[in-house]
């Protein structure tokens, strides 16, 4: 689904075939772009942790939480 998703400058992600939109923030947008690039959860955690200089244990919880949300929305399995 992410291939389809178009994210505009207000961080709203739109999936044309389903006609649904998602409001997200910068970090979420970044993670989705990383997913599109084929990165997995552990990779994403490391990248974020390095970029923002935050401990990977803390980031792990957030990314895990984010993936749960994506599952709820049916965007990933």
């Amino acid at each position, binding site marked *: 689904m992410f291939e389809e998703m178009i994210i505009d400058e207000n961080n709203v992600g739109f999936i044309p075939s389903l006609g*649904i939109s998602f409001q997200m*923030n*910068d*970090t979420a947008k970044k993670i989705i772009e990383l997913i599109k690039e084929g990165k997995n959860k552990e990779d994403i955690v490391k990248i974020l942790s390095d970029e*923002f200089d935050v401990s990977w244990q803390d980031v792990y919880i957030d990314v895990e*939480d984010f993936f*749960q949300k994506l599952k*709820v*929305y049916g965007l990933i399995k």
Partner: protein
Amino acid sequence: MSKKYEKPVIIKVDFTMASKYGSPLKTQKVRSEIDDVNVRDLVEKFGSPLFVYSQRAIENKYNEFKEAFTSRYPDTQFWWSYKTNYLDAICKVFHKLGSKAEVVSEFEYEKARTLGIEGKDIIFNGPYKPKDALKKAVEEGAKIHIDHWYEINDLEEIAKELGKEIPVAIRCNMNTGVYPQWSRFGFNIDNGEAMDAIKRIFEGKKLILTGLHSHIGTFMLSAAAYGAEVRKLIELKNMIEENFGYEIEYIDIGGGFASKNRLKGVYQSPEVIVPSADEYAEAITNAIFEFNKGKLPKLYLETGRALIDEAGYLLTSVWAGKRMPDGKKSYIVDAGVNLLYTAFWYNFDIALDKRYEGLNEPSMINGPLCMNIDVISENIMLPPLNRGSVLSIWPVGAYNVTQSMQFIRYRPRIVLIDKDSNPHLIKEADDLDYVREKEILPEYLK
């Protein structure tokens, strides 16, 4: 280095999400200070969870109600209802403001006495008054409000033992047009039971009727109900003075005024449905002027909730967050229904300690207890919170402390912020010794 880290947030946009107050995804309710004291500082100094009372708020409310009543009816006296909050410091604040005491048990009576309140400044209510406590109260000059026929007999025996007549009041109940009617306390006026009780008192020749009391309910949203209550009490007073020659010195209309708490199941906001002090005062004093014959009685009020509820806050810290299978975010905080018994009836106002980055998402707030009912807020829009975020829950000043349970976790500290914004510790947290203090381990189990 680079930009500040923000937790990732994604929310499906739903155009049917309507709200009275602007965008639900962005509006955050922030309360970073109570009486100019930062909530994080309070938690840092005194621990979490933490009950916080604002003396300024207490005094403002008390003065508001006092003004509303005394400007219309100068001879009004407030009697602080101990069961609403019997912390020594809080009671002292009210007594210093001029309020007397209203108690409903021998324990509360003793507590008031230890605070230095004299018997004559205590109203003793309640259906259960053990005889020796009753006798002591009578000896010390307390105002006894009789609840049932057995109590009349008890008092007459005491009168005989002490060799003197006892001034008393009777509690009445009546139909005030609202549901539920608290009909199991006192004597019913509508079916004549109250009149019978007075006749019994008169014939007993040992008790002198000096007052009439009623307490029609709690969290009353109708000022008119009080008008009806006062009317029936005053009409009863007129009849008594005419038929028995007693001079009814006072009418005690009890308490029950509502606070700006949000009742579960009620859609409208408290500003819309909760009557103001003036509305209650207007209904009550108008009824007195309209129906009273003879000398105007003193007006006693046992207001509790309305005076203290909005002055009390509970600070609680977020410990962890979870994502529920349905997508809702669940936060675990360190205060639960063990401390907020009234959470079963009210949707508290919950505020953040500062503005958070990110969009709100549907969340719920759960307490620390390992019990499924431990839910403080079922459904609330919150931004992503960290461990350590401090939430302030309001209004919790009434009943929560007195009804809190020593269950699973120790009861927390309680702080009172004075009018100069200095926080004072008024109750220490429970500890193991305190909990075990009254336990006795039988020999054979040692």
